[in-house]
């Protein structure tokens, strides 16, 4: 090798950078977090829409609710799943059942590295341990 020392050094540094996630995770088994449902949520058995939709689309629903409530004073949402009418409010409706924010919302958000801006304005429910 010509200038072998320098090239190998550079190669090792480059590989170390590229393999960073493997070193960082080595020895750790990072299981996906379990969402915890409150007794009330368990009893209700279903959310306002299908679970699969709520998993991937809740942020859209909440964002639309915000715009509709703030801009059009449109406060009532009819579920496509059950046809029931719900009051559009994260604090009053969502957190009514999902009162355990840290165990229901935060676990997955932290795991996926998502920072929802809900609580920039809204007040998170008080949780009692």
């Amino acid at each position, binding site marked *: 090798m010509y200038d072998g020392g320098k090239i190998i050094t550079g190669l090792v540094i480059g590989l170390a950078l590229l393999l960073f996630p493997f070193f960082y995770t080595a020895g750790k088994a990072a299981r996906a977090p379990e969402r915890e449902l409150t007794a009330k949520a368990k009893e209700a058995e279903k959310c306002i829409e299908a679970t699969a939709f709520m998993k991937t689309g809740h942020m859209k629903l909440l964002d639309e609710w915000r715009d509709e409530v703030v801009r059009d004073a449109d406060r009532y949402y009819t579920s496509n799943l059950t046809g029931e009418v719900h009051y559009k409010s994260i604090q009053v409706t969502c957190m009514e059942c999902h009162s355990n924010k840290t165990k229901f919302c935060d676990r997955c958000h932290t795991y996926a*590295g998502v920072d929802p801006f809900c609580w920039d304005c809204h007040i998170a429910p008080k949780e009692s341990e």
Partner: protein
Amino acid sequence: MNFVVSIVFSGAVVTLLVLIPWVGVGAFDLRVLFGIVIPYAAVITFFAGLVAKVIGWGRSPVPFRIPTTAGQQWSLPWIKANRVDNPKGNGGVVLRMIFEVLLFRSLFRNTRMEFRNGPRITYEFEKWLWLFGLLFHYAFLVIIIRHLRFFTEPIPFFVKLLENLDGFMQIGIAPLTGYQLPGLFLSGMVLLAAVGFLFLRRLLSAQIRHISLPGDYFPLFLIGAIGFTGILMRYLLKVDIVAVKELTMGLVSFHPTIPGGVGVLFYIHLFLVSVLFFYFPFSKLVHLGGVFLSPTRNLANNSRAVRHVNPWSYPVKTHTYDEYEEEFRDKMVEAGLPVEKAPEPEEEASEEETGEKE
């Protein structure tokens, strides 16, 4: 190759690459193959290929310095030398490499030569390739670092920091029906825009179209498809992100799992990325490592100051005059020919003279 053929060929290959996991996961449920086996094989190929390439380049002799410089060489004290563009030592070389790797200085130097007003040559401003190349590479870097959130737990601070910078714009749900996320990551859009430019540049400029091959179009289409499926997944056709992270963390911690509920779109994205990893070491994309080994950038221009011996020079058998005289001295003296060193026993006086020479 005709550029239409090149484009159609590259486009067809990328389309096929989208269809393979679509059918494989969608119809045959080969989740282990597309979620575990192929990604691991791709990553192994990538690293083995990259190391082999770099070692191969390292073993190639660089017999002399190639001073393709844009600055005055260091020579005499009263001639002002350019220490960065034409470095004589390692410090200048490091600076030149930093400019090259981080800022693409060679591309910045680009000008367009044109004939204007008859036979007069003009050099026009032409920085678009530099600009969009820079945008493309930095957007790609930001995207890769952002993706570390799927490969680390807990997520390091710099990933969050970069995410916050990248996502400082919110565009809300409104602009597109079905658009599902208020936050916007600029890097994704910049990447697609830059890919678009780089493609149009190859298509619209006659000279560049002429030298473009499938090997140029295919990576652009592939990276475009990766970006597009990623954007689809994030903003439009959602996937269960927690399940996705479970899969990626499984890969990176060597405890691979296939969680349920991950849509086929994710497998398409993953497969395209795997293909990129496979393809990387064998294509022009390996300039990731190659840029550090550009002989015109990473060698000091000391061709005059230091003697460089060609490493593959054949050890030529020489017969110097000294050796020649040593062999034939007696005969030369006999024939009356002048010799540098007189034979020893005969003349004592000349011995002193030759003694000085030695």
